[in-house]
């Protein structure tokens, strides 16, 4: 199983490869300039996209080829924080400055367990660090979880295996964060 991580230059991008390695997946950081052909050539079974310091509304040019990849590729994809917002924009939603940014521990309330949140209870504490947020969810997507200050914490495409989380499941302080990656790996294995 090979799942590369798009390096969007956030603090935790490298940490995602560590977690995937620990759950038995081959993973490495790849640049955001990576193409569909290159991902196919390396035999990627899925793609995780990390977070980054770019502001979603003003810094499109700093997200490389990711918008094209999200739109065109058929493999399962999982965007975290900034790339969670990016996914919504690619499919026709909106994202911008959050009214109440969240940093550190935030309680997440689950509305729909779905594949990514399988095995979770009704709520859990997750670690956040975001200045922007999704403002409008694309019509092909559904929202799976929210927090008190942020409506779209976990999203998925209604028919395609494309997911996003606003919080960071890769940091050790997010309760059961690893389970989210295990669930995503299951999706990639088509289990």
């Amino acid at each position, binding site marked *: 199983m090979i799942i590369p991580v798009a390096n969007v230059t956030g603090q935790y991008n490298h940490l995602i490869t560590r977690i995937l*390695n620990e759950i038995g997946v081959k993973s490495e950081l790849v640049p955001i300039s990576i193409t569909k052909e290159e991902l196919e050539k390396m035999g990627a079974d899925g793609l995780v996209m990390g977070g980054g310091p770019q502001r979603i509304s003003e810094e499109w040019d700093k997200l490389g080829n990711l918008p094209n990849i999200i739109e065109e590729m058929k493999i399962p994809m999982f965007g975290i924080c900034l790339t969670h917002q990016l996914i919504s924009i690619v499919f026709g939603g909106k994202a911008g400055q959050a009214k109440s940014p969240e940093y550190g521990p935030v309680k997440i309330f689950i509305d729909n367990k779905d594949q990514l949140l399988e095995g979770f209870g009704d709520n859990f504490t997750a670690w956040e660090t975001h200045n922007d947020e999704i403002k409008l969810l694309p019509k092909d997507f559904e929202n799976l979880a929210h927090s008190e200050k942020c409506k779209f914490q976990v999203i998925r495409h209604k028919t395609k295996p494309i997911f996003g989380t606003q919080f960071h499941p890769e940091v050790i302080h997010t309760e059961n964060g690893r389970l989210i990656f295990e669930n995503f790996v299951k999706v990639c294995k088509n289990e």
Partner: protein
Amino acid sequence: MRMMQQLSGDIMNDVKAFIQKQCDEIRHTVNNEKALIAVSGGVDSTTCAMLTHKAMGNNLQCIFIDTGFMRLNEPKRVESFFNGLNLPFKIIDAQQKFLEAIKGIEDAEEKRKRFRMIFYKTLGETAKNTGCKFLIQGTIAPDWIETKGGIKTQHNVLDQIGINPKVQFGFNLIEPLAYLYKDQVRDVARELKIKTDFSERQPFPGPGLLVRVVGKVTKEKLDIEKRATTVVEENFTGDQYFAAIIDDEVEKNNKIPRTVAKFFDKEKISIDVKVSKNNVTGVKGDLRAYKKLALLTVKSDSNLFKPPIKKLVELQVDIISNNHDFTRVAYNVTETPRNGKYIILLRSVTTRDFMSTGVTEIPWNVLIKTANKIMEDNKEVSAVYYDVTPKPPATVEYE
């Protein structure tokens, strides 16, 4: 050069193989030339020295640069530890050089950059004098991630940000641990049979107490910081715990008390929020946030109100979320009416890998005992606060 690029996860499965592979690569790279390693007595550089010594024996020279920003008695402790290991070890006293270089400088990044310059100049001279062509460093993943991301300048990160150590300082760099996190380094340390009082000791930043003496550094401020650190180390628990010192130059804030009042929703409490003149380092949405520190005092019937630490962390989330200029919140543990020059901040964090940290729930009686002891020992201190900010939005260290 960095080694073993993608195997950070694999080492959990096979630490022995990791050590073997790194030793082979080090031998191959240095090819019987001499190498220098800068050790601080911390987990990373000690582990790195042991690993490299295993690979190249006494062609490795260990150097301890006494920057003057070490904890009390630390140079002696490190010397006797390395002598016990039979590793070639030398102390270089550079205290004056460092103190002069950062004299009068207030900005955190400028302090770190000047520290880095003196640090490598000293190493470069030593490498030249001892005929060493290589410098071995115990850089680990969070070091280059934070420096490259512009969060803060770690003193040991060079080639990852485009500084060529060969051209600028005269040596080639080898970083065998560059893709590991702290807990993985400890796995390597255990496998190398490093004594547990060193392998399990809490991390200590490369620039040492420099980054805990917030703002301008003076000898008096540094000495108080050293004494306060000793008291914290004797009383606290956590994955990392220490004291920091700021100037008692504060102004009143009138907006934050409204958030605090709403949060506690309690009658008969008085709320006072002061803002430190010294900025402190944080990280918000993957961006460096060198911003304000809120010092919070809540009294109930004229006694300090002592809610569970967990509650204070929740309150902190509300405060930072609604006040974009702030990156940290600390809560009053003890104060005196006397006019002191400084305020001490106590910090203790919980973590695995230092990429994210929580706030340790130190019992109130321990907080008060520690704070009182610091106040007794240092008449120039007017108050002691406990930092209740996780990472993010704060970083572990203050600068």
